[in-house]
């Protein structure tokens, strides 16, 4: 098989357009404070206005998918943590769900609630990181430190149970890897009691602040049609008025038993995305409280069973993580590990939209829009 020469092009180098005013080509990244990792966006700017945008990814590529081909099903899970290192626990769930579906494992009731509570708790942590780094993008330094102060406490609680802070390797097929810390539920509730009082502070500093509103209202408008057609998911999609949430639409674990509604906003701008995330923090607090109330305090936390998957079986399972739909496609050849596992990471898909959103915007707004999409480059490049 030979590759056509036309497809073997070199890296895209934009040539500046010379007209009435000269276009300047600015390399936003790969080393740049606002790209949240190593992302390169080649921008054509006319003064402060962006005329073209070409994103380049792959600087963090590790090819997990190739490595996973030579690992057993259980050995894959630590690699998942390292995709989206901000919400490691959440990454593990769709894979576990897919393997459980394929192997026909039943998850014990208690494990379901532990997983759901952990999942939502990780959403809080992830949104905290977003609040902090996003406000740093917009030039406010204080929310970053507030957010990391609270994230630190939250990570401590996760650490007490899983032993890891960002890379916990905790969920597994059939439940969770080990029992929760004896004080786990009490820790959670104590933290939430404290945290609930702090969230309004974040709101005052972000979505309610006049300067923030001046920077965000009407900026980076994403229409409903464009969002759906581009497969945008998570808060970005819901801020454009589409009530799509896999926790509701394809419920997994303990979500069918919990009482909640999908948060949407119709504006579709940067402010709406921020507001949806702030509201989701409140929603997660509520969901964890429900889990703590409903969860059985004793019982098995892991259904032990052999993972034997027939050749030719395949499954695509997705879960609604803090950034959107994280999907895993597993194809089995009957061996001890996945023949092929493909990860559909939300940031990878959400990032595709940026050329559409950037063109015609101010340079400062480019940063605001990029931050509002909430990408993690470890997940984009995998």
């Amino acid at each position, binding site marked *: 098989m030979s590759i056509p020469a036309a497809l073997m092009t070199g890296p895209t180098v934009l040539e500046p357009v010379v007209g009435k005013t000269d276009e300047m080509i600015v390399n936003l990244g790969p080393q740049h*404070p*606002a790209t949240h990792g190593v992302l390169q966006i080649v921008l054509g700017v006319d003064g*402060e206005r962006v005329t073209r945008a070409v994103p380049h990814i792959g600087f963090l590529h590790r090819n997990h998918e190739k490595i996973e081909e030579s690992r057993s099903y259980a050995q894959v899970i630590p690699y998942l943590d390292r995709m989206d290192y901000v919400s490691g626990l959440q990454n593990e769930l769709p894979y576990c769900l897919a393997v459980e579906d394929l192997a026909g494992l039943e998850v014990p009731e208690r494990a379901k609630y532990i997983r759901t509570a952990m999942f939502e708790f990780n959403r809080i942590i992830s949104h905290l990181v977003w609040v902090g780094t996003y406000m740093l993008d917009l030039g*406010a330094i204080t929310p970053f430190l507030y957010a990391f*102060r609270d994230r630190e406490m939250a990570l401590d609680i996760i650490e007490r149970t899983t032993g890891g802070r960002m890379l916990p390797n905790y969920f597994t097929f059939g439940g969770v890897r080990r029992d929760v810390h004896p*004080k786990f539920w009490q820790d959670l509730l104590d933290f939430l009691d404290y945290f609930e009082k702090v969230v309004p502070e974040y709101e005052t500093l972000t979505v309610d602040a006049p300067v923030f509103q*001046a920077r965000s209202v009407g900026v980076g408008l994403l229409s409903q049609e464009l969002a759906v057609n581009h497969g945008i998911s998570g808060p970005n999609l819901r801020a454009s008025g589409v009530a799509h949430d896999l926790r509701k639409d394809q419920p997994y674990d303990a979500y069918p038993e919990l009482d909640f509604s999908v948060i949407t906003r119709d504006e579709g701008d940067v402010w709406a995305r921020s507001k949806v995330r702030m509201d989701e923090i409140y929603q997660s607090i509520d969901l964890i409280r429900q889990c703590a109330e409903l969860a059985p305090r004793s019982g098995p936390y892991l259904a032990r069973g052999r993972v034997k998957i027939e050749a030719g079986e395949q499954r695509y399972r997705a879960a609604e993580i803090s950034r959107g739909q994280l999907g895993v496609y597993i194809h089995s050849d009957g061996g001890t590990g996945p023949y092929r596992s493909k990860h559909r990471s939300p940031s990878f898909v959400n990032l595709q939209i940026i050329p559409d959103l950037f063109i015609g915007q*101010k340079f*400062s707004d480019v*940063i605001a829009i990029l931050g509002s999409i909430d990408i993690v480059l470890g997940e984009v490049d995998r």
Partner: protein
Amino acid sequence: MALSSDKRSQLKRIPIPEDRHFKPQLVGYNPKTPNRLAEVLAHSLLYFVFVGLLLLIYGVLPWLFKLPGSPLASGGSFTTTGAVLYGILAAVLSFLVAAVAALILILVLRKYLGLVQNRYGPMHNGPAGAFQTIADAVKMVAKEDFVPGKADALVFTLAPLMVFVSAFLLLTIIPFAPGWVLANLNVGLLFIVAAGTIGAYGVLVGGWSINNKFGLLGGLRAAAQLVSYEIPLSISLLTVAVWVGSLNLMDIVEAQKLWWTAIPLLISAAVYLIASLAEIKMTPFDLPEAESELVAGFNTEYSGMRFGFFFVAEFAELFLLPAIAVVLFFGGYYQPLAGFWDFADVLRGLGAEGSTLNQFGGLLASAYGMLWFLLKTALLSYLVIWVRATLPRFRDDQLMELCWKVLIPLSLIGLAVAVILRLVFK
């Protein structure tokens, strides 16, 4: 080796400890049991140096020069040699004053930001981190003097000096106490505008000379911002001139012995404070060096002491622009309501006329005025830092809108108010 399941069940189960995770300990400084007195003393250390330098320049040096039998002075004023010598010494010392003011502000900014942001700030170098900025300065001086290959070397070298000199020039006309001013210009207000503008050029050519796209964008942003905001700033200065009837800063302070200018000219004072935030490029107006957008803006390629000049100039301005605000609007070196009763008058009245005690009392009165001046300036500087810790950044068009659509009309209204008030009351 894998254990069989019944063997595994025979193993003793290790209980999960209550606190499974490892808690790191802070080394060298335990914020849980701080020595408050030591902390305050440590942080006051640089402040004492600063006050001491000011006293030396304005109080002790002239007194030393005028000692009986001195060849440098005759009949209460300097000889030519004495004046030149005093001028050189004062210039050197006031350079130190600017540098120390910047050092203090950097330390205070970091400590105060730490307070606002629920953290400790510098705490490892010296008692409670008091020597952190000194260590930073040493590091900066020790760094390689580096010029990027494609930079315009001459302009690259001159730009930080222009910014620094502009900030330093402003220091010469600040009256710290009655008579305590290096250059008592009768066109002081014009000098403020003139000296301040040099800094804008420095930033612009600095951003251009480094041949970096982020630097260019930052430099252009800075030029647009600084030039625009000079208009409301200058109109506010003009308002004061109209109200007081003089361009001399000493005269302006003297006119505020009873009532601060800020009371009748509230609008102008507010406009001046906001515009001066933009002039010193502080959040929410820090677009020229917007870290998350332009990496470091106009000083992207600067390092070592060249960057240090920008840095020191920025913090010197953080002291100087509030200081000018205090001179123009908040009564300068007078204590509040000094027109009714002034403690400085009490100090000046000590002893018989011409006696040593009387001379000492005069020095004390000046020092008392200086302390009031520094207190007010410090409060305004804190205000600036507080704003910086709280607000996000404006966008460039919003910045311009704020200037041209809000501040300039407001400053013109302020000017009209001043004219009317002057016609009515004076």
